[in-house]
């Protein structure tokens, strides 16, 4: 680990100014950042610990629910309002990491965690995301956990967050503040596709901090579920996951659907076309399967992750059926 200076400002403006200096990195819960620093993927010269900033807490507002960026995953998961109105978010949180990690990890940090691509995490191999221009060994290597959507010939790294999958399905807004003032942007626009520069993962500007998330309230948010599939029963990222929220009409058919999938996209992957196609569909495996079939369009699987396409379709059906059972 390279020596670095450390500060923990209480004033957001100081934090932003410090974080904007090249070579500086922001530290929240540190559950990802510390790993990256220890193994040399990140070598900041200065670490700005933002835990002293007033970005913690949960409030129900006219818009929906507002969750401070420094709120711990465990705090959010225990919040009664969130459990009631946005169960898919709570389920995604409870299926993330372990209780110990969730006690430390923050909502903002979770969205910005780096990929679990094995090559990104092992400094001894090339990786375009870690070392621009060095190559992408995952394309023809161990790519079981890599993405089938949104990849380029430079990078097919999965965005690993479970939370982001649930949030993107629900039109979550990300509130930020930076040297150029505050912004509100849809979570769907926070992450970039890898394209030619996989090392640049978000649209955040130097020094720009996430301050809060706002999740709108809706009938579909209330009737929502998260389904996560993985190699072991707990403490692991998703092979495939699906976040589904639905609103039903009086006949029990789908009036409105929200759907996003995890483990398959280079960013949190929403499926707007499927959402459209689901309108009016009956909540039965037979009716849902043909619609889920459409989710495979545009998938570009590699040798090790081809199974994810079919698994995703099945997960979508299950998640929708499960959402239908929410009362």
């Amino acid at each position, binding site marked *: 680990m390279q020596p670095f200076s450390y500060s923990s400002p209480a004033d957001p403006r100081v934090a932003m100014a410090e974080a904007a200096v090249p070579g500086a990195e922001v530290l929240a819960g540190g559950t990802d950042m510390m790993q990256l620093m220890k193994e040399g993927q990140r070598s900041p010269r200065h670490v700005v610990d933002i835990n002293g900033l007033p970005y913690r807490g949960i409030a129900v507002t006219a818009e929906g629910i507002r969750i401070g960026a420094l709120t711990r995953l465990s705090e959010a998961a225990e919040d009664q309002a969130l459990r009631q109105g946005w169960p898919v978010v709570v389920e995604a949180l409870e299926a993330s990491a372990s209780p110990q990690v969730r006690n430390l990890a923050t909502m903002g940090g979770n969205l910005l965690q780096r990929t*679990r691509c094995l090559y990104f995490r092992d400094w001894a191999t090339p990786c375009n995301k870690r070392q621009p221009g060095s190559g992408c060994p995952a394309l023809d290597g161990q790519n079981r956990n890599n993405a089938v959507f949104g990849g380029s010939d430079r990078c097919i790294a999965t965005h690993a967050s479970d939370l982001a999958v649930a949030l993107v399905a629900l039109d979550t807004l990300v509130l930020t503040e930076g040297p150029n003032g505050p912004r509100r942007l849809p979570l769907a626009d926070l992450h970039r596709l890898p394209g030619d520069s996989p090392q640049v993962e978000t649209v955040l500007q130097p020094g720009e901090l996430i301050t809060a998330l706002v999740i709108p309230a809706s009938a579909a948010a209330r009737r929502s579920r998260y389904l996560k*599939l993985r190699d072991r*029963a707990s403490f692991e990222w998703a092979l495939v996951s699906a976040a589904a929220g639905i609103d039903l009409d009086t006949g029990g058919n789908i009036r409105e659907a929200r759907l996003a999938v995890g483990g398959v996209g280079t960013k949190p992957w929403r499926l707007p076309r499927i959402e459209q196609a689901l309108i009016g569909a009956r909540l039965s495996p037979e009716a849902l399967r043909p619609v889920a079939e459409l989710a495979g369009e545009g998938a570009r699987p590699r040798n090790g992750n081809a199974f994810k396409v079919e698994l995703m379709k*099945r997960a979508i059906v299950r998640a929708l059926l499960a959402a239908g059972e929410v009362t």
Partner: protein
Amino acid sequence: MSVAAIGQPVSRVDGPDKVRGTARYAADFTLPGLAHAAVVQATIPQGRITALDDSLARSAAGVIAVISHVNAPRLPYRPFQDRPLVDPQSGDQLRVFQADRVLFNGQPIAVVVAETLEQATLAATLLRVTYTPERAITQFDEARDLLKPPPASASKPTDLGWGDADAAFAVQPLRTDSSVRQPNEFHAAMEPHATVAAWDGDRLTLYDKTQWVDNDRDEIAHVFGIPPEHIRVISPFVGGAFGSALRTWPHVTVAALAARVAGRPVKLVLTRRELFSAVGYRPLTVQRVRLGADREGRLAALIQEASAQTSIYEDYSESVVDAPAMLYATANMRSAYRVVPMNVNSPCPMRAPGTATGVLALETAMDELAEAAGVDPIELRLRNYAETDPHKNLPFSSKSLRQCYALGAEAFGWTNRPPKPASRQEGSQLVGYGMATAVYHTNRAAASARATMLADGTALVQSAASDMGPGTYTAMTQVAAETLGLPVAAVRFELGDSELPKAPVHGGSMTMASVGSAVQAACLALRDKCRSLGGNAEGIEGYRALLGRHGLDRLSADGQAAPGDEARRFSMYAFGAVFAELRIDPELGTLRLPRLLGAYAAGRIVNPTIAHSQCIGGMVGGIGMALTEQGMWDPRFGRVMNASLADYLVPVNADVPKLDALFVEEQDPHVNPLGVKGLAEIALVGVAPAILNAVYNATGRRIRELPVTPDKLLL
């Protein structure tokens, strides 16, 4: 006073120290002037180092020394008289920093010593290494052309056989032909390997993670060409090892060398990522089993062939085909075990080495035969029950496998097994039951111990044994307490120091039998000595009075125990039967294991609490083997890509619901004076095949490659 301590559920005597954090593991030792080391590992699998520029590293803050083949002192690596038992028996061991050759990705090529760990780690990244890569052997399937028989070794048979198995197979009415592939598997113990090395003139002290302090001492004596008496190895606690700390790996030499060059005590702790190439692993193994039987399923031919990876510099081999040769009665048998040299670091024993592997292939094949014969899997095994060891042609010292089947089947409710594959569905889940036999050989080796009665009437008992978790401290304390007639609390057992009476390797499930017998012998000798002083002293008061009367502040006796001719007269094994219930959601490929149960017959059970925990721990290892663990290899780099605990998946609590281990009472007067069989490795054996067989019962599909991950179960 007679004290029954053996057989009692005594709580771990080392528990309080572990809970309080006062138990000291290798990396916990610190010394005045301690410096820290970080290794540099090769990043290519085969080639030469053509340039190694350490100027940046040398000028980095706090750096004391940078050592590589360029400047390392030449180490003698004296020829072994006998190779250490725990090393591969042929090939050349890896030499530390003695040449520019790279033999595998991850090979240690340099070490940086600095004032702090952070400085050492940073400087290690500043070395500029240039390689001339050469063609490496990194594809197992291609390299199988190179397969060769490992050197014959009595303890690790390769080509066994009797009768004419191929001819017999060809004419049997029932034939199965199955294969199974398992990836390399890593010990992934909680405690990383760590060494603190300190020289005092030409004397060396090592605080090390090891399952055998004596071997550590002998190995380093051989490497440095110094008398073993000049080395002391201290290892009071080991935080799990499962075989990874049996042999003395190159990093121990690295630490000793670094301390010598730096002129300071040095601590070297391997990182999790480094561990995946710095110490061994269970080798990738591919097996094929052919069984031929009559219509009732009585075996007439058993052919088992296995090939496993080894390194290009050593022939690591394990006893894959030993258990398959003795498990069932068959008139014709042939086995072949081959190794495939690759550019990898040498594999090493991992819990139930070889046996878990061989039994995996045989027991899944037996499941296929049961199906072909249309009989219950237990019934099939009973029809082929070996009353005597068909390979060694010896009677068993004891064998209670029938009772294991019966006890396990009853407790598990085996009769509820879905009679046909894929025939039971509950909701979205298919339900399956599976079983397999478990077996592990009972060995022991010469061991010694010292028992000392102290003036206060308590006893100190010592042996250079190890406790990597199974409860050596506790079990030895119990044996000593009972033999001396003292309460358990009045006996202290010490281990893990090469100055103590010699003990054999803490592996192969033989510590209880070997060290336990020596402890018993030492305590009997001490008792006799006390008696010879007059009176029949017993209990704390009695001993205190006795020593007081004679004005003694202590009284010691040594004891030895060594195998007799029992191994020539008997075939000695512990047996068990493992039962698994699974639920598989065929749409999502998810698998849940609601129950796993093992019934074991392993001679006398010294401590039921610890034995139970030992067994369910081993079963968890078996669950990992079956369901989650695999080295994800990239042949282009010759590297395991998931070298972290986030990516190398050991089972977590949620994967492991209800586990149970039951014991069949067994008295075996032949195996050793204590009548104990090993109870460590066997608990991992049979678990993976029981699970695979249950997968078949649930789904009607045979999975032939471990681990059984969701993608393989999607129907």
